[in-house]
């Protein structure tokens, strides 16, 4: 009898903790240490490409969120200049592009077969379901 009650209490506590976690995930403000979304060209990429390796570093579509990760940071760690997204970046150089409006941006980009790079900037999610969905997507990534 006592074991049954203890089990029920534990289950109840578990449900309570889960509910609190969901409430926190849905309502707590989103805070981040850095708003940079970094993509880097590793050293040796050019050599690998020359050897016939199809290296994809930048996705064709990049998703950012205003106020969270709304700065696209592209870094060239290779030994040769690279057209990376919208910019020609020298070896050791970075290109930092901030976004201030939610929208879809298209850039000419020779690194992609389509010749285009899309950056989708979403607005900061509202508290509640949008924030919860945003956190879930982030955790699953």
């Amino acid at each position, binding site marked *: 009898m006592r074991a049954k009650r203890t089990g029920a209490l534990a289950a109840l506590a578990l449900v309570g903790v889960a509910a609190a976690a969901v409430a926190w995930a849905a309502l707590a403000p989103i805070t981040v240490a850095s708003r940079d979304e970094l993509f880097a060209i590793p050293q040796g990429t050019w050599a690998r490409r020359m050897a016939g390796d199809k290296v994809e570093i930048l996705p064709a579509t990049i998703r950012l969120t205003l106020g969270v990760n709304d700065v696209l940071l592209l870094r060239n760690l290779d030994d040769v200049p690279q*057209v990376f997204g919208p910019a*020609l970046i020298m070896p050791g*150089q970075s*290109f*930092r*592009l*901030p976004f201030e409006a939610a929208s879809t*941006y298209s850039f000419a980009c020779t690194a992609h077969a389509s*010749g285009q790079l899309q950056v989708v900037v979403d607005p900061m999610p509202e508290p509640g379901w949008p924030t919860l969905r945003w956190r879930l997507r982030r955790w699953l990534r």
Partner: protein
Amino acid sequence: MPRAIAALCLAACVFAVVAVAAFAAGAAPPLKAGSFEPPRAAPDFVLAGSDGGALQLSKLHGKVVLMSFGYTHCPAVCPTTLATLAEARRSLGKDAGAVQVVFVTVDPERDDVATMRQYVAAFDPSFLGATGKPEALAAVRRSYGVVARKVPLGDGYGVDHSSSIFLIDREGRLRAQMPFGRDARDFAHDVRLLLAS
């Protein structure tokens, strides 16, 4: 003794406030455009200027240069860009004189010196157009990572081209690249920062 502690706390608070203020004053506010770190020297070139002379980029040292690539038959992007740059320049007041807009053609077939002169002057008489031989223009585009591709358009052709605007500081360093579609206020903001730096 409690007085001494209170005085110490007060001094610490004053020091913290001063330190934070000094740090804030020292840190340059970020550009609205995409910025290069570290910046490199803007690749130099000599092309035919719309003013009838040779346009050498390095001769513009001392001014902030806003440079875009396009063509006079462009249906939307180039007129929008040049109108935005004209508005930005106007909004700078007395600082406008320290800014030079350069428009480099990607369509030398149709954009000769006279056509460029007439076109850029329609936006702002101070704007400079640049044209030249196809291979010279292609070399300039390569050095800035600009792409341009002829495409069929109606009975003639158009040119798909990169639409970013390059921001070059007074020392001739390529500092930033503004994506197409940004507001004149963003340009004015960044030009003021470059003039102040």
